[in-house]
């Protein structure tokens, strides 16, 4: 076996790579990294960072597991419960990841080591806590040397955060299109002129973007061709970046979705009933991982998280996820991971060979998926036929807790008020028939007087993320086409 067996996103760094053996995650450390690895351990930096919760801990494993003869060691890092990406993080999460990276570099410098890269993909969230996962990113620091990861830090963190804070929070999605971070010239063009009043933004984005690119040398450049940067100047650079990041703020307005729960669609008694049914169904379903899709600010996600189940709380609205994240930080909720995910355009597999970043489906299946007050948004507002929805659900979970909202519900009436009703199939019988092809319905309970129903279902066969969704039934396709034509 060789490096070909390494996981998709782990091929750039010659120091080593990550691989999976019998379901366990390992990292091979190559001989070329030996000196740096020994310094990481001997300097006490590894222990210090792990104790502060900034670096993922690892154990050394048998060298016999190595995939190639370049190996110096094999380590077994503690796996993170759910891998997420910067384009799925809210503003507060990206900011926390940026500050953690700078803190890591500050502590590393104090122990005569430095981060050789500052990719946002090297940070993962365990609940609300950002943790650095690339143990091989540390190198011995030589005084006078520049910070090799300076530009990368600006592209991965400072530029997207500045765009989100100064222009529009949705610009965080530029990270999905630019896998090595937002190009600085693009950020400089998009930022308003007033952003130049902030010295770190002026320096590290606007001027940095305009620093004159030099002709790539025909021969390898002498390392000391720049002015040496003293250790004090290096600390000042890191501190200036920290000030820049800390100065950026984004306060979500009370989003319409936050208002949703105060809306007229439920009475207090009905909310209490829905909560108690969700609790009961969760106790009957799988308890390993829960994904709450269309979670809003995560009221129901928290029912799962409070049971100690690691819960991904996702919604397409950045404001909802920001509020959910801030609440989770305030209340020290450790089993909740809020993420921005748009179900009608979920995170794809990205990067080289489509294998560097996994799609949402590839990161599943979850034990249990919650789809509460979601079906009508997907079916009526987005023309997703019931059959497709059931097919998607079967790919991402083993157990499904799903709510059906009938046409006479005020929220559906509101959705239909602004469009032609081309959904004759939208009724409880058709919903159940579509889902029963994939799932066994274990419970079916009424939630509201308007006829909202809550179901607990279990997949008829093990979820297979590779399986494509089934072609739409003819009527479904006709209805979808008619709806598209009418808009």
């Amino acid at each position, binding site marked *: 076996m060789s490096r070909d067996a390494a996981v998709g996103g782990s091929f750039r760094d010659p120091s080593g790579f990550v691989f999976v053996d019998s379901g366990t995650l390992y990292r091979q450390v190559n001989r070329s990294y030996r000196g740096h690895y020994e310094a990481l351990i001997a300097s006490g930096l590894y222990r210090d960072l792990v104790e502060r919760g900034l670096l993922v801990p690892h154990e050394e494993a048998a060298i016999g597991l190595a995939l190639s003869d370049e190996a110096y060691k094999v380590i077994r890092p503690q796996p993170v419960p759910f891998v997420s990406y910067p384009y799925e993080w809210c503003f507060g999460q990206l900011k926390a990841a940026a*500050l953690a990276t700078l803190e890591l570099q500050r502590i590393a410098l104090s122990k005569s080591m430095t981060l050789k890269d500052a990719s946002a993909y090297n940070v993962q969230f365990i609940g609300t806590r950002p943790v650095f996962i690339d143990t091989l990113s540390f190198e011995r620091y030589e005084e006078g040397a520049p910070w090799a990861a300076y530009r990368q830090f600006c592209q991965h963190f400072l530029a997207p955060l500045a765009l989100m804070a100064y222009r529009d929070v949705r610009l965080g999605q530029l990270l999905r299109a630019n896998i090595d971070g937002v190009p600085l010239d693009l950020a400089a063009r998009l930022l308003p002129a007033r952003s130049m009043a902030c010295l770190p933004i002026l320096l590290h984005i606007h001027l940095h973007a305009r620093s004159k690119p030099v002709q790539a040398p025909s021969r390898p450049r002498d390392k000391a061709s720049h002015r040496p940067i003293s250790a004090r100047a290096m600390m000042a650079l890191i501190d200036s970046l920290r000030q820049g990041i800390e100065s950026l703020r984004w306060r979500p307005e009370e989003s319409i979705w936050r208002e949703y729960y105060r809306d007229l669609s439920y009475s207090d008694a009905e909310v209490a009933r829905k909560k108690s049914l969700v609790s009961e169904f969760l106790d009957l379903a799988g308890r390993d991982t829960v994904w709450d899709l269309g979670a809003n600010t995560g009221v129901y996600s928290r029912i799962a998280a409070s049971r100690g189940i690691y819960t991904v709380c996702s919604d397409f609205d950045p404001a909802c996820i920001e509020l959910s994240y801030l609440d989770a930080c305030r209340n020290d909720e450790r089993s909740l991971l809020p993420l921005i995910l748009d179900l009608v355009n979920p995170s794809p597999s990205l990067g080289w060979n489509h294998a560097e970043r996994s799609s949402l489906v590839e990161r599943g299946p979850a034990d249990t998926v919650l789809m509460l007050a979601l079906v009508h948004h997907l079916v009526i507002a987005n023309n997703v036929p019931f059959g497709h929805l059931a097919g998607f659900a079967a790919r991402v979970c083993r157990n499904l807790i799903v709510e059906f909202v009938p046409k006479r519900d005020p929220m559906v009436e509101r959705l239909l008020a602004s469009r032609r009703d081309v959904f004759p199939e939208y009724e409880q019988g058709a919903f159940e028939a579509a889902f029963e092809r994939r799932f066994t319905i274990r419970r079916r309970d009424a939630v509201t007087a308007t006829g909202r129903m809550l179901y607990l279902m279990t997949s008829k066969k093990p979820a297979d993320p590779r399986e494509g969704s089934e072609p739409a039934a003819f009527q479904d396709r006709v209805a979808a086409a008619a709806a598209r034509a009418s808009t």
Partner: protein
Amino acid sequence: MSRVRALRLVALAFLIAGAPAAHAYLDPGTASVLFQAAIAGVLAALFYVKEIWRRVKAFFTGEERRSAPDVSDRNP
């Protein structure tokens, strides 16, 4: 702070100079290193001035200041 103002003037000169065209054989990494070397000295001087200012303030107000900022225990 007059240093900040001076730095902003330098910055303005940079901006007026115009953005260079992108080219596959141009090396943004080296440009970044040269830029970093150029600003790091100025930032160090600013950092030093601020540190002195902090200490002077601390002396008069009697506040204890940590010498280095620590963000690890800060709630995000």
